[in-house]
Each structure stands twice: as C-alpha cells, then as structure tokens.
C-alpha cells in the first residue's frame, strides 16, 4: 500500500512528465487497437468461397452485367445436362444505382436463393410482398441499411425485408425475386447468368465439357470457382494485410511500451540513488518503479482505447481491396493488448533498474 501511495504521489507530483508519458503511450495503444480491429474485421467478414456450380455467361463478356443470354440457353442446358443436372436457374445480374451507391442487383427465382445460391437468412423474413428485397451483409455494412430500410431502385421504392449472408462474389449484393425484376426492367434486361447445379455424384467436368461443346459460341461455360479465382487472390491479399497490420500493431505496442517505461526511469536515476541512500532496498525501489509503470501503462491504455473506440465508431464500415468489412475487437485482442502493455512496461522498468542496481549508489547521486 505504501508503494502504491508513493508511486501515485510521485506521478501526481510529476504530472507534466506523467501526462507526456500517457500521451506517448496512448497513440501506440490506439494504433494497435485500430490495426487489430481492422485485421479482425477483415478476417471475420471475408466471405467464404463459392461452391462447385457451373455458370453460363455471354461469350467474352468482361462484365457479366453487360451481357444478355438467349432464353433458349435454359432449355439447351437442361437438355445437355439431362439427369446429371439438379437445376438450371436464370439470374438477372445488373449493376444499379441505389441512393448514390453502385450495387449488384441479383434476381433469381426465390425458391433457388437458399438451394442454388447458398443464401442464409440472418434477420427479418424472406421477401413476401411485391416490393420486398433482401440485402447481404456487405451492403448492410457499407450502406448502414437494415431490415425495414426503404431504398429506391429504378424509380420504385423497395423495402428491405431480409438481411442475408451470401457466399463468395455475392457477398455485397441486393436480391430480388426474378419475376419482380423482370417486371421492374419491363423485360428489357433478359438475364445475364445461368447457374447449373450438377446432381450429387455426377462428373462435373463432363457436364462442363458437354455444355461447352453445345454452346456454339453463344455462351461461355465456367466453373463458379473459376469466377471465384480472382476473389481468392483478393482474399489472400486481404489476409496478408490483416497479418501485417497485426504484426505492426503488436510490435509498435511492445517496443513503444518497453522503451517508454525504460526511458522514464533512466531519467530518474538520481532519484533512485536518493531512495537507495535513505536505505530503501532495491526491491522496494523496484516496487515503486513497477507501480509507477503499471499506473502509467493503465492510464495510457485507457486513453488509447478511448481514442481507438472513437475512431472505430466514426469509421464503422470500411472497404479494403473490394472487401467491405466492419472493424471488430475480440476480447482476446483486448487481453493481448493489456498483456503487452503490462509486460513491456514492467520489462522496461526492470531493465532500466538493472544498471542502477549494479553500480554504487554514489554514482546515481552524481547524475544530473
């Protein structure tokens, strides 16, 4: 208790130095927490990859949304696939402007949303009313929309009835029943994608080859996973970014905390000498120094955490390399941060105490 009291009184008395120390620790802590939050957000919100379906798109289309498939493709695909194919589903795929945002609009028969496209309901209810739509997590994070939000598409006001999770390239998209989309675009749009789901146990590669042979240049055939290849590369880049962020955050916190604790004590070597000349044993001096370091570290962490929370609140959703994600700070990251700050502060203090402990007390008293 005496150590705590002496340490506390010393910090209060030397308040300018204490404030400067806290001001130095806080940005490091804030940077660590922000980097870790970005890193965690990237990891948590990176969508899973696509399943092994086959997609048919307009030939040589750089952007699937710019193409248009002949309705006969549906019948051709079903005929060529035969019993090897579980379903053949058309999809309207258009980039549209909603509330000043360009988003993917995907429309397919609502009964295929879960079975073919792998959507999972997170909140609300699947669209029932005429102007109901569903949005994915990516849209919810980027636009701040939620169930009940009303948004205008092509001059018509729609209501978000469902928040869904969608895999892979569908991560950030708006979903509408196929018939409603056809009606909205007055049949002008046609459809841009056909998804062919192979039956269980069939040779997927054989189906793709048969469809390619039958296409006669009217459509291109891909595995859905091929479309996801670019997404895989982006996911890798995002993961790398997350890893680098984590390492930088931890390193900054560790080195910063260590050096600050050591430097603060080095500047007080004469005071250590005075304490030793009064008969305070080394352990007691170390105790006071550790108490000071712990109090400064705690204050620095608290201020830094406050700054980080404000920054993260104001930038709730971010986009990195095309991924929309929400920064998050898991309990483990908090614990790691506290652990690093505490251990480096104590480590720096003990290291700084090693040299004074090894020399005669009179040399400490000579320091100015």
């Amino acid at each position, binding site marked *: 208790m005496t150590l705590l009291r002496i340490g506390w009184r010393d910090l209060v008395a030397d308040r300018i130095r204490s404030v400067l120390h806290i001001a130095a620790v806080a940005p490091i802590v804030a940077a660590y927490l922000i980097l870790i939050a970005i890193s965690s957000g990237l990891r948590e919100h990176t969508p899973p990859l696509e399943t092994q379906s086959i997609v048919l798109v307009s030939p040589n289309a750089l952007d699937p949304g710019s193409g248009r498939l002949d309705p006969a493709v549906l019948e051709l695909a079903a005929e060529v696939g035969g019993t090897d194919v579980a379903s053949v589903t058309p999809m309207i795929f258009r980039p549209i402007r909603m509330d000043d945002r360009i988003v993917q609009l995907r429309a397919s028969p609502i009964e295929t949303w879960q079975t073919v496209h792998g959507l999972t309901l997170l909140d609300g209810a699947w669209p029932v009313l005429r102007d109901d739509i569903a949005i994915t997590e990516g849209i919810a994070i980027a636009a701040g929309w939620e169930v009940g939000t009303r948004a205008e598409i092509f001059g018509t006001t729609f209501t978000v009835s469902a928040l869904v999770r969608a895999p892979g390239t569908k991560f950030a998209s708006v979903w509408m029943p196929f018939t409603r989309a056809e009606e909205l675009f007055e049949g002008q749009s046609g459809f841009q994608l056909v998804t062919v789901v192979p039956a269980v146990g069939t040779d997927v590669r054989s189906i793709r080859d048969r469809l390619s042979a039958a296409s006669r240049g009217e459509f291109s055939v891909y595995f859905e996973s091929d479309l996801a290849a670019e997404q895989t590369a982006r996911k890798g880049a995002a993961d790398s970014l997350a890893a680098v962020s984590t390492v930088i955050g931890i390193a900054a916190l560790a080195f910063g905390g260590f050096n600050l604790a050591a430097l603060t004590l080095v500047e007080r070597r004469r005071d250590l000498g005075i304490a030793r000349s009064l*008969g305070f044993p080394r352990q007691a001096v170390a105790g006071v120094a550790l108490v000071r370091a712990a109090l400064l570290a705690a204050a620095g962490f608290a201020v830094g955490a406050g700054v980080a929370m404000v920054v993260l609140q104001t930038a709730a959703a971010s986009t990195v390399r095309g991924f929309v994600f929400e920064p998050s700070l898991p309990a483990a990251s908090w614990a790691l941060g506290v652990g690093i700050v505490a251990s480096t502060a104590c480590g720096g203090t003990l290291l700084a105490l090693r040299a004074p402990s090894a020399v005669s007390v*009179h040399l400490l008293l000579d320091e100015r």
Partner: protein
Amino acid sequence: MDAPAPLLVSAAGLTRIFRRGHRVVEALREVDLEVERGEFVVVMGPSGGGKSTLLNLIGGLDRPDSGTLEVAGVDVGRASQRELDDYRRRHVGFVFQFFNLISTVNAGDNVALALLARRTPWREARRLAGGLLAEFGLGDRVDHLPAELSGGEQQRVAIARAVAGEPDLVLADEPTGDVDAATTVTVMALLSRLNRERGMTVIAVTHDPALLPYASRVLILRDGSFL
C-alpha cells in the same frame, strides 16, 4: 545495560581506487580513522583530495578496494548489499552539497521518505516530518516543492531528512557549498545543535574554513591521505 561503545567509526588501511580508461586514480590511500560517538569532525582539504570518497565509504554508498571499515558495529567494508541497505536505514543520515531532494515531491514527503524507509506508517511519517520541519523553522513550507524553496531552506529540509530516523551518524558532504554566508551560519548552527543536544555524531567534509569553529576535531585530507 552497557553503554554504547564510544568508538563509532573505525577505519584502517582504507583504500579506494578509480579506473577511468587507462588512468588509475588512487582516491584514498590506506587511510586510518577513528571517530568517537558525539564528535563533530570536519574533514578539510582541496577538491579531489578524497573527502567525498571517504564519506561515501563511511556511508555505505561505495565499497573500499582494501582495508577495514566498521561503523556502529557494522562491517561496512564487507557487508552484503542487503546489510548495507539496513545499515544506511538505521545508522546513517546524509546531507549533500546539492541537497539531493526529490524534486517531484514536497518538503514534507521528502522528509517522510526517510521514515518510510524505516517502515514507519505513512501517517506517522508525515506527522513526524511535519514536526521536524516546524522545529527547523520550516513549518509553513511542508507542502512546498523543493523548487519553491530557497537554497538554505532546501538544505534544512535535507538535514531534517537526514536526522528524521535518529541516526547514529550524520554525514555532510560540503553542506554549505551551495548556500550563501548567512545560510552557512544557519545550516552549521543546526548541525551543531543536533550534535550537542541529540548527541548525533557528525562528519562533515568541506573546503570552507567557515565550518572550522563548529568542529570538535579537524582533519586535513590531501591526495588521499590524512596529513
């Protein structure tokens, strides 16, 4: 119960050598010294003559390279670090030329620290420190930081800290080296009073002849040896 032995400090063949690069400086050369309890010894001599080194050794702030040194029954020359801590805590009070007050805590706390080192409870330490400062004419300066005090006031706080724990021995290293002539009288009168009234043994090193009238014995130390 026996009276305490009259001999408080006993040094024989005390030698301290400093090595600075290739240069070897013999700060003390086989010094012999005996100081009885209640003496007021002033050690005079030029700068670099070994006065502060002698005081550092007697105070357990440094260790001799050879020779024996016993103070208040403690073999200071061979004591462990822990024993030296205990020795300084129980037997010695220091007064330094530049006061060596902790700049970030007030006068009361600076004095109380010496008592806290002796495991005196916090409140009691603060109370005793306040009383001692009042006795030294600093009752209204208890809550002042060292920077808010004059040189003479700082030195009186340092003396209060040195004697707070009722040590056997007060070691003063150029106690008037950083104060004016009027303050020199005040500081020395205070040390003299403590020596006279409380029976504290004082060893002061200085090159200021103004301290000589207060001494019961004067020693001259030059080039590491007593003349």
